[in-house]
């Protein structure tokens, strides 16, 4: 009925349609992006001749040839296995700490859980103090997450080394805090984008906020949360290997030692181990995510 009523476009009407055009604003944006790239090239002092010039090529060759052959003596490999396990454990404990920090903060940093949306439609009669407090908690949680995230993990590690001394523990703390910030932000975004329908239904049936969270929000986003947590664990393994450079244990510490002693053959073995470890973790987490 509605089809019959509406006018059907035939092919001879296309000429009257307005074709899309380049808007001046998109041209301006493209000019700006171009200018930004040129400017960055200069300011970042990009100088390909330094890398690919005669001297550059010689240094590169010296360093690269120094890496070969990798040192595979049993004593050294044994040492590396211990360090590799340590790196692995730093990354696992760091990610666990990050989730423990990031998840609760994410709940506070989700506007739909704190003050906005369907759950608070009828909240007009709550006291302004209470509403202000809710908004303040939300903003505070966002600020804490931003702070954790904006300071690089290496800087956190340097600070924690000062506080708790050398070893794996400051590495765990550094990963926990900086990754907690990233996880919290993404978790909040995942929670904010979950479908609203079930939440409205549970709310309308008189369920409390915590029950709505457990039944309406979490089951819908659970797979996403786990998947992103696993992705962060992959990144944490790389970080854990680097953090050793500033004294936070694991393979990084071995890299730092071997470089300082000019034992580049040892460095190459360690880099190989890092590569293998990261690849293995990549595969493992992909497998787990597929199974979800």
């Amino acid at each position, binding site marked *: 009925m509605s089809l019959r009523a509406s006018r059907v476009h035939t092919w001879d009407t296309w000429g009257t349609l307005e074709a899309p055009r380049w808007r001046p604003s998109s041209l301006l944006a493209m000019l700006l992006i171009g200018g930004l790239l040129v400017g960055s090239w200069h300011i970042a002092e990009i100088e390909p001749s330094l890398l690919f010039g005669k001297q550059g090529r010689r240094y590169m060759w010296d360093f690269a040839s120094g890496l070969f052959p990798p040192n595979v003596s049993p004593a050294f490999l044994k040492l590396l296995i211990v360090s590799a396990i340590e790196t692995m454990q730093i990354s696992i404990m760091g990610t666990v700490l990050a989730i423990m920090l990031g998840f609760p903060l994410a709940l506070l940093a989700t506007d739909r859980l704190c003050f906005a949306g369907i759950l608070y*439609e*009828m909240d007009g*009669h709550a006291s302004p103090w209470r509403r202000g407090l809710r908004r303040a908690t939300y903003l505070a949680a966002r600020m804490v997450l931003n702070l954790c995230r904006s300071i690089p993990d290496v800087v956190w590690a340097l600070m924690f080394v000062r506080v708790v001394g050398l070893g794996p523990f400051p590495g765990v703390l550094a990963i926990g805090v900086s990754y907690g910030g990233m996880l919290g932000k993404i978790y909040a975004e995942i929670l904010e984008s979950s479908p609203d*329908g079930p939440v409205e239904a549970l709310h309308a*049936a*008189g369920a*409390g906020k915590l029950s709505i969270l457990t039944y309406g929000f979490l089951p*819908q986003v659970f797979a996403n949360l786990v998947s992103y947590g696993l992705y962060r664990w992959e990144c944490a393994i790389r970080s854990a290997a680097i953090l050793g450079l500033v004294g936070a244990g694991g393979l990084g510490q071995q890299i730092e030692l071997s470089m300082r002693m000019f034992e580049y053959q040892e460095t190459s073995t360690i880099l190989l181990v890092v590569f293998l470890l990261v690849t293995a973790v990549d595969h493992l987490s992909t497998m787990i995510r597929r199974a979800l």
Partner: protein
Amino acid sequence: MYRLEQVRKVFADGTVAVDDVTLRVDPGERVAVIGPSGAGKTTLFRLLNGTLRPTSGRLWFGEEDIAGLSARRLRHIRRRIGTVYQQHNLVPQLRVVHNVLAGRLGQWSWPTALWSLITPRDRPVAASALEQVGIPEKLYARTAHLSGGQQQRVAIARVLVQDPAVILADEPVSSVDPTLGRTIIQLLVHLAETSKKTLLTNLHAVSLALDFFPRLIGFRQGRVVFDLPPEAVTEDVLAELYAGSESHMLASECP
């Protein structure tokens, strides 16, 4: 059951969705609200179930004016109002049993609710609700694997478990085919009759409203334009209700 006095709902963008509605629904009544899309029917239902607060006017549920209640008191009211939605609004990732038992969330404490996700509580209640809606074998099925009609049955079972005084069904059959729609409306009417619950339905298909409801309310541009028994709802009345909008479903449904 419900008493509305000059209820208005104006959204933040200035849209007047419900405009000066005065209405009374008695316990045990079966009422169908019909009208063109965009008339504000869904907003009316969200006012009735305590999801939205009226901008002005008074809205009594039983003895209480829910327009002015605190959040906590409202929660108690909401437990006594069950809603079935057009989009079912189930959690697709949960098993059917949890979606059905979600009707109990208003009564359960949070630890109880959490524990029930591990080992479902009140299994006989959930099973008997599913039995009543005709899909007892789906108790442990994944909700996402069910068809649209089966999901709507699960949503109805959730309302049965909630055991409210009134059932609001907001376009409950718009997302299923007409034959299945008729079956589901029959089911809702039957359940409301046997358990003596008030039933308010918001329907797109006029023929279903005429066949199953002793009272029809015509809703247009946020206002009640008629409130009549089905015998009095003539073609002329309907033509006026749907004037200028897409045709009502009566013609397309009865060839």
